[in-house]
């Protein structure tokens, strides 16, 4: 870097100052490019008068002020309803198969002459938790994920984002956050990464910090299962429609929490004005069904299930051991749960549920298996009819009420992001402080909401 660049520096600004006259230079460059593109397109594109522009018509309905929201709720509700009413039968079938197999497996283990403790560890600990996780989680996922992928492939999600844009603007956040929120339905870690599409750092942080409030793949099975249990017989006999409504309402609560916390953040820690952006409506596309099924089963269902199973097996074993090592009169697991019990009751839940949420920090998929393990360690399963059996375990043996169900759903919806997501947030923000914030903000929200709801409902 000798004299040469210095000369250039002198000449450079001169050239630009000399030319920058009435019209901005960059405007003129862009204008020339646009004219050129128009010219070429005019020569090579021919358009026959199309009849009805169905895309336009459909957009007018799906994103209208009047019909936009109701249709959005209806679509989501329909998906939940199909999932819930469709999952029961295969779930029951799977449970029967698994417990039928358990008998033979048990006989085989006895024939091998295993000691009692190993028999219990393997069969009642490891195998049973595996069977439960697969039977309870697989069918709803195998129905829900393909349906959601269809919605994604049709091009509906950007329309949903368009509908919600105004709400986010009022919350002081970027409308694109609606898109990152939709991504969060798949996986919060993916949702956090997708926040990169938001240009303003302030709005990006808001989107990152609140992404946790939409239930991800790992939490849907819990929401659906608990919704089925508390609505199918405990409160009403109406069954699957009530359950679907319950899941829908919890999603709405999640969206409300997102908006409220975004509003709170944009008024306190992250003040500023929302920026403008353009959102392109992609054309509607006919989804490739075969591809959707393969992709949603492989990428989502099996991914979530394998994560649950990989941890459920050792966790099942561990919890069985904890439950069978006695400390005084009660088991070790019972002791730990008992410590948490009063606090759990304050939040409308119990010690076992809190334990499941705490131990489930690495991945949300683990909460169901941990919950089941926790209860089975202190109870037993006699009835073998899938969800009915689970209901028996939770309601009849461990005194779940509708309050327990509601608070468990709320806590699952609002509590801290999973380990993977936290790690992603740390990578994206590069700040320990914001990662801690991403952990504490939802936790405080969850504690406040669950505490308030439980205390209110206890009054009746």
């Amino acid at each position, binding site marked *: 870097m000798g004299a040469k660049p210095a000369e250039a520096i002198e000449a450079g600004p001169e050239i630009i100052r000399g030319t920058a006259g009435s019209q901005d230079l960059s405007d003129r460059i862009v204008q020339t490019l646009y004219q050129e593109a128009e010219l070429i397109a005019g020569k090579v594109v021919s*358009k026959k008068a199309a009849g009805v522009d169905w895309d336009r018509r459909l957009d007018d309905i799906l994103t209208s002020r009047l019909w936009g929201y109701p249709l959005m709720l209806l679509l989501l509700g329909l998906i939940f309803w199909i999932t819930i009413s469709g999952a029961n039968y295969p779930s029951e079938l799977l449970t029967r198969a698994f417990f039928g197999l358990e008998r033979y497996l048990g006989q085989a283990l006895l024939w091998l002459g295993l000691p009692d403790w190993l028999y219990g560890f393997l069969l009642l600990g490891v195998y049973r938790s595996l069977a439960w996780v697969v039977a309870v989680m697989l069918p709803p996922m195998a129905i829900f994920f393909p349906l959601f992928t269809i919605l994604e492939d049709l091009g509906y*999600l950007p329309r949903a984002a368009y509908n919600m844009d105004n709400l986010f603007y009022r919350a002081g956040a970027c409308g694109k956050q609606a898109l990152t929120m939709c991504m969060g339905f798949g996986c919060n870690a993916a949702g956090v990464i997708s926040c990169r599409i938001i*240009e303003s750092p302030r709005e990006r942080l808001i989107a990152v910090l609140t992404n946790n409030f939409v239930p991800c793949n790992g939490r849907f099975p819990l929401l659906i299962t608990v919704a089925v249990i508390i609505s199918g017989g405990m409160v009403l006999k109406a069954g699957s429609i009530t359950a679907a409504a319950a899941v829908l309402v919890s999603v709405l609560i999640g969206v409300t929490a997102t908006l409220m916390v975004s509003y709170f953040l944009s008024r306190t820690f992250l003040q500023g004005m929302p920026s403008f952006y353009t959102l392109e409506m992609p054309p509607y596309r006919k989804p490739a069904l075969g591809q959707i099924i393969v992709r949603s089963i492989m990428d989502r269902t099996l991914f979530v299930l394998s994560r649950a199973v990989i941890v459920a097996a050792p966790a099942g074993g561990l919890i069985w051991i904890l439950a069978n090592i006695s400390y005084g009169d009660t088991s070790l697991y019972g002791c730990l749960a008992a410590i948490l019990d009063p606090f759990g009751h304050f939040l409308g839940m119990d010690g076992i549920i809190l334990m499941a949420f705490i131990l489930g920090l690495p991945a949300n998929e683990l909460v169901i298996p941990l919950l089941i393990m926790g209860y089975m360690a202190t109870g037993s399963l006699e009835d073998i009819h899938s969800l009915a059996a689970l209901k028996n375990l939770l309601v009849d043996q461990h005194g779940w009420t509708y309050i327990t169900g509601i608070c468990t759903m709320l806590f699952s919806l609002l509590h801290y992001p999973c380990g993977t997501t936290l790690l992603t947030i740390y990578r994206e923000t590069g700040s320990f402080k914001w990662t801690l914030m991403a952990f504490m903000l939802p936790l405080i929200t969850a504690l406040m909401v669950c505490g308030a709801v439980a205390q209110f409902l206890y009054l009746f």
Partner: protein
Amino acid sequence: MSNASLFDLAEGSSRRTGSPPVVALAGNPNTGKSTIFNLLTGLRQHTGNWPGKTVLVSSGSYYYQKQEYQLVDLPGTYSLLANSPDEESASEFLCFARPRATVVVADATCLERNLNLVLQVLEITTSLIVCVNLLDEAKRKKIFIDIKGLEAELGVPVIAAVASRGKGISQLKEAIKKMVEGKTCVQPRSITYDPEVEKALQQIEKQIAGKGGAFPVNCRWLALRMLEGDAGLLKKAAEYKNLEEISVWGQNLPKP
């Protein structure tokens, strides 16, 4: 994959013989770019109907007629001129990493808007192949595109494709191969801006010509960016060998 490693990769490919040639994949969001990337590389990457789906720059490789090609999937952008991080990284990659061939995927249903990006890329590199995708959808909407005519207008190869059904992929591979081997005869359309802009461009070009040394960059593009007042790209130039001079030059430009 971070940008830095991608640059290493591209630089290496132009220097060392034997390492696979780098091919860049650019295009507007939602044009089926990721579908084409998946079809070529076989890498599993979820492609949904989303605007701005590919946030990360990903790369994969494929073999065609026993030759390996390194394919880099750039973020979907509408332009290379504005200042979102995605547009910056795409523009930076094309300008400094100098891939051996660049494929711009264009949406047949709204070709005009897509041509803006094509023309901008054409300002950076002439080793360009345009892939007009979603022709089935265009047909459904009664939009017809004269592929040969477009080829004549742009002066670079244009491939017709329906990527969702795998149509046009083998032609694209062939076009990439020919481009990388230097067997494609391109007569790129040159864009003439208004006289005042042109005069300024030429003057700046004169100033920075030859400053790249052994690592030449497209001076006209850099000059365009300077006229636009984009100092960011020029600062980035400092990260590459022999480009410090240009960078220093650019740092002192007035803000528009």
